[in-house]
């Protein structure tokens, strides 16, 4: 089924569709959002990711118009909407609690937005039916919200927000209230729907897995600021700070000092590893600078036999094993007492697995470690 996309597509290709310009929001002395600038393209799924209280929801609420920015401006499709009230913005929101009107049926809930625009009755009926079939809720028109399951309510909320064909759809923890199985299925449904309709999505979530699955780009937030914006791969493989490296996925993090700084490689002395870490690219930091080194658990290989001499080889004792089926997680204690997390895929069914208290060698590729200076 094809649904026409948002009308009034006036921005030239390539220009940012949503532009957030030095946006700040203060509540009394508390700064919820601090000098955030961001550009989001048409048709993108942009995820704001961060812990609770990081300002992501405040930023979303400013996009929706529920909060007025203290400073800065918001442009949608080239128009300054900073002071436009929510009921006049070409933006719709899906609330975390869904906020379905309890006294209205599913049909009335979905039609509510169209009624406000005084859409002709016949067209309204068609569009509501079309939307309900898109979210697979045909036949539930006359139900009240309390007669629906959590997943069904989520889809009503989605239909209600999409039926007005908004230029921008804001989703506040869209899958937060669903159980794990349903969440996984709904993630893919959401992406499919977005591709079909071509609406630009801005999603707020604290769940990094959700962000990785849904987003074309992620903005990681902390204490009101955006620390890094990038594709899921960028964020995971090339975090720009300790916080981002630590927040996304699991990571082994240690401190070190730059002892060798060449354009094509650096050597970082890490006391907790009892060895120097070799990284095959230069780092823009002054010599002798204190840096952090982050290595993802799945980038470390374990072996019983000592690997050929080379960089980034350590040995340690296995102090913990968690067999998860697809992968096994190990905790390996180094002679220094530092414990490294290692994840290894279970490729073969018949395999002599490593055992508790066994001494093993650890090795990682020269490109595996990430050096961050803040």
């Amino acid at each position: 089924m094809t649904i026409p996309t948002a009308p009034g597509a006036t921005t030239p290709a390539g220009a940012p569709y949503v532009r957030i310009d030095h946006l700040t929001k203060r509540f009394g002395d508390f700064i919820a959002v601090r000098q955030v600038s961001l550009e989001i393209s048409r048709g993108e799924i942009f995820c704001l990711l961060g812990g609770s209280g990081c300002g992501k929801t405040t930023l979303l609420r400013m996009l929706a118009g529920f909060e007025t920015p203290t400073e800065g401006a918001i442009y949608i499709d080239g128009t300054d909407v900073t002071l436009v009230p929510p009921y006049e913005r070409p933006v719709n929101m899906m609330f975390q609690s869904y906020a379905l009107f309890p006294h209205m049926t599913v049909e009335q809930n979905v039609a509510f937005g169209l009624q406000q625009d005084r859409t002709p009755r016949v067209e309204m009926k068609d569009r509501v039916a079309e939307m309900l079939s898109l979210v697979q809720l045909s036949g539930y028109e006359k139900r009240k919200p309390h007669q629906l399951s959590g997943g069904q309510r989520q889809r009503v909320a989605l239909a209600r927000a999409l039926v007005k064909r908004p230029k921008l759809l804001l989703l506040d923890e869209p899958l937060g209230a669903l159980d794990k199985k349903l969440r996984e299925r709904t993630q893919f449904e959401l992406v499919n729907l977005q591709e079909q309709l071509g609406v630009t999505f801005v999603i707020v979530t604290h769940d990094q897995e959700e962000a990785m699955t849904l987003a074309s780009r992620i903005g990681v937030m902390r204490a009101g600021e955006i620390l890094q914006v990038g594709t899921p791969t960028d964020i995971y493989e090339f975090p720009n700070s300790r916080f981002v490296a630590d927040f996304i996925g699991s990571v082994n993090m240690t401190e070190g000092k730059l002892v060798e700084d060449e354009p094509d490689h650096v050597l970082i002395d890490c006391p907790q590893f009892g060895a120097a870490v070799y990284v095959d690219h230069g780092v823009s930091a002054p010599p002798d600078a204190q840096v952090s080194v982050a290595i993802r658990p799945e980038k470390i290989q374990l072996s019983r036999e000592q690997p050929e001499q080379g960089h980034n080889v350590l040995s340690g004792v296995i102090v913990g094993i968690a067999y998860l089926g697809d992968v096994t997680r190990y905790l390996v204690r180094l002679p220094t007492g530092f414990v490294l997390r290692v994840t290894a895929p279970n490729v073969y069914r018949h395999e002599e697995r490593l055992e508790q208290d066994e001494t093993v060698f650890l090795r990682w590729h020269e490109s595996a470690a990430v050096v961050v200076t803040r």
Partner: protein
Amino acid sequence: MIRSLGRIGRGGEAGLGRWFVIALPYFWLALFFLVPFLIVLKIAFSNVQLSMPPVEPVVTWATDKVLQVRLHFANFAFVLGDSLYLAAFLNSIQIAAISTLLALLLGYPMAYGIARASGTWRNILFLFVVLPFFTSFLLRVYAWLGLLGRNGPVNGLLLKLHLISEPLQLLQTPFAVYLGMVYSYLPFMVLPLYSAIEKLDLTLLEAAADLGCRPTRAFFAITLPLTREGIFAGCLLVFIPAVGEYVIPALLGGPDTLMIGRVVWDEFFGNRDWPVASALAIILLAVLSGFVLLLQKVQSREGAGP
């Protein structure tokens, strides 16, 4: 869990305790509501007689060991046949209905303001609503007598402002009755409204705004229907006592303010016709019960959902 609770509840001391807790209020109601009601009902079927109390006993031991029950329906026939009583009923209902509507129009914004006020303000505003209960009801109605009198402060202020040239006749008017009614029963309207509005999820209003609904429209589409239970409760709490109100029309109203409460009083103390007064009271009770049942039916039919 539930089964084990049920087992404890069925026998032993816990069961007895539960029975006691339930029985106590019912016993209280039976003693102070049901028994007096039955006495009034008995008097309503009795006849006037020069004695103390001034009614014929309904149940008598006649000679020959016969228990005699004599029910006079004449009182009801008399009350229903006389247009004066019908007029008093209709007038009472009209005054009560208008008072209820005025209290609702005044109380809803009040309750809304209190529910949306911040913590400290909410407590202070709430206190103002409850404060009148600290003084006797009768005293407060008497206070209005002083305020609205010919030489009272209201007339004094209007004269001083040169809005009027001579004192207005405020007492003994329908205006004074409505004023007294709305003033006295406003808290009963505000309290249930407040609790209903306070429970309303504010994100629903945000959702409405997000879907293009302006605040005034959102009030009628979302806030009003979702606080309907508070509106029903408040209206009942005002309407029911207002219909039978005696003190306010007696003190503030004129001789033409004919309300059923006053008619009952006159029959009882003026004419010493206890049976007719009782019959009026019974009919009033029946009419009001009818109202409550009707409203409950409407409410349960519309409110299929929570």
